[in-house]
């Protein structure tokens, strides 16, 4: 067993009760994957495949109906300060300022810290996400991008072992999204923060992730493939698309989202749910050719 495994999702199943007492709906079933320490893993899938539900179960604010999530050798039974969540809709307390929102998290982590120490610690993270000067503004006075920065700073400030991001940039305009992605990229590169992120933006996944999990459409969603990002780790949004591997990767992910996510739903035979095929899209066959997909089965 890989000793670097920080998160291990094993045979995870979640069912929702059916409407009006009908048969329960299985959102996903027998889900297996893991996240190594220091790794950035993205999960891509269409709406309704249970991405947020899965993230909430890892966070410990939702429960599974089968299987388990193991973090650092311990089964997840509830929320923990070791797993910080950045919510889709920022989820800032509107009656608290930027500083107040972050300090609320810091005091939860360090109840014994002095006021000055909390203030200093908060300031470090406010500066990190470039919100210096907006400390005393309320969320309503901030733009959408700034609010999400506060959400990210709040999660980072408790210095969690794992960051869980639930489509954190989906409500932002393209420019703001780009600059926030750069920021997350540089913070994660510096701190080697273990991160699990949900997205449906292919470019975002390619920019940030080391591995991309592809989830089929729900109900009965499952991890169909694990795409290893073959772009060099030292990435940059401006010239990422110039790398020869970029389009093979991007096409592979787009193909999946457009057609294969639905086709693969019914094609279960031959795929071991514990070991979804591992693929390495690369540009080796030259332009115009089908992007080569190197599949590997024995990665566990």
């Amino acid at each position, binding site marked *: 067993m890989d000793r670097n495994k920080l998160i291990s999702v094993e045979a995870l199943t979640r069912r929702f009760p059916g409407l009006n007492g009908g048969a329960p709906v299985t959102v996903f079933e027998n889900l297996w994957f893991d996240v190594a320490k220091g790794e950035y893993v993205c999960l891509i899938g269409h709406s309704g495949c249970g991405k947020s539900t899965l993230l909430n179960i890892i966070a*410990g604010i939702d429960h599974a109906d089968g299987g388990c999530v193991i973090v650092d050798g311990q089964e997840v039974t*509830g929320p923990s*300060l070791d797993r910080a*969540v950045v*919510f889709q809709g920022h*989820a800032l307390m*509107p009656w608290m300022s930027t500083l107040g929102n972050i300090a609320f998290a810091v005091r*939860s982590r360090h109840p014994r810290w002095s006021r000055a120490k909390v203030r200093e610690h908060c300031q470090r993270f406010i500066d990190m996400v470039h919100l210096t000067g907006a400390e005393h503004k309320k*969320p*309503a006075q901030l733009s959408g991008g700034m609010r999400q920065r506060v959400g990210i700073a709040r999660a980072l400030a408790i210095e969690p072992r794992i960051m869980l991001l639930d489509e954190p940039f989906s409500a932002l305009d393209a420019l703001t999204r780009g600059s926030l992605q750069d920021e997350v990229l540089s913070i994660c590169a510096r701190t080697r923060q273990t991160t699990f992120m949900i997205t449906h933006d292919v470019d975002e996944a390619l920019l940030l992730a080391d591995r991309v999990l592809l989830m089929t459409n729900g109900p009965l969603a499952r991890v169909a493939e694990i795409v290893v990002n073959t772009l060099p780790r030292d990435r940059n949004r401006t010239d990422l698309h110039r790398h020869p591997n970029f389009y093979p990767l991007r096409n592979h992910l787009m193909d999946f989202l457009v057609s294969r996510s639905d086709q693969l739903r019914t094609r279960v035979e031959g795929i071991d749910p514990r070991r979804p095929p591992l693929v390495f899209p690369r540009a080796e066959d030259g332009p115009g050719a089908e992007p080569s997909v190197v599949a590997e089965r024995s990665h566990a």
Partner: protein
Amino acid sequence: MTQATSGGRALLLSFVLLAVFLGAWQLAVGGARDSGGLGDMDPEYAALMGVGAGSGSAMPSPIEIGRELWRHLSDPFYDNGPNDKGIGIQLAYSLGRVMTGYLIAAAVAIPLGFLIGMSPLFYRALDPFIQILKPISPLAWMPLALYTIRDSSISAIFVIFICSIWPMLLNTAFGVGSVRRDWLNVARTLEVGRLRTAFRVILPAAAPTIMTGMRISIAIAWLVIVAAEMLVGGTGIGYFVWNEWNNLSITNVICAILFIGLVGMVLDQVLYRLSRLVTYAD
């Protein structure tokens, strides 16, 4: 047109409306007096009705009201025995009862509302009681209160308590029950304790809704105190109104009506300012 001139115009129009109303009133009362409405009335009967020679109609003119108002305002706190106290003292008695009953109601309703809002079980268990008790006119409790408490002043406070508890209870429960899921999830992922979550997340989130309930309650309490004091007597603005009606002093009744309105407006404004303090933009 700027905000300021628009406000100035509204104020001007208010004054014009007031002047027209007072003028029409003055004309109507003065006119009745000139026509000699007592012409064919038996003078003895007229005297019995309090419209005796020289005093004219019992309906006072605005000028008489103004004079009486000035008399009340220049000496609001005199005390010449049980049936002759200054209007300030009477209002203070009423306000004292309202505040006592209202604050006790708040002390019960807000914690209980918290419990109901946080626990669907408690909500369902208490809902039938609330549904039955809420529509009862607070004055219907009066005989029961007088019989069990045996003190008219405390009975009036009890009536205020029972009428102001419902809006605060229901609004608190609703506000607490509808705190956004996301905020509670944030508190959970930060491993915030139950008490800290209640005070730092749920209370501020529900505060605007709770304050709305408190504003409705104070308005109802101020409406009810007049009727309650008419029943129990002794002191208070409600008793004052009833006493002046027995004295057939319509002037004083009208003065009291004005004061009741003014105090009610001040109470509402105070609560409005307080609710602005806890309101948040989302």
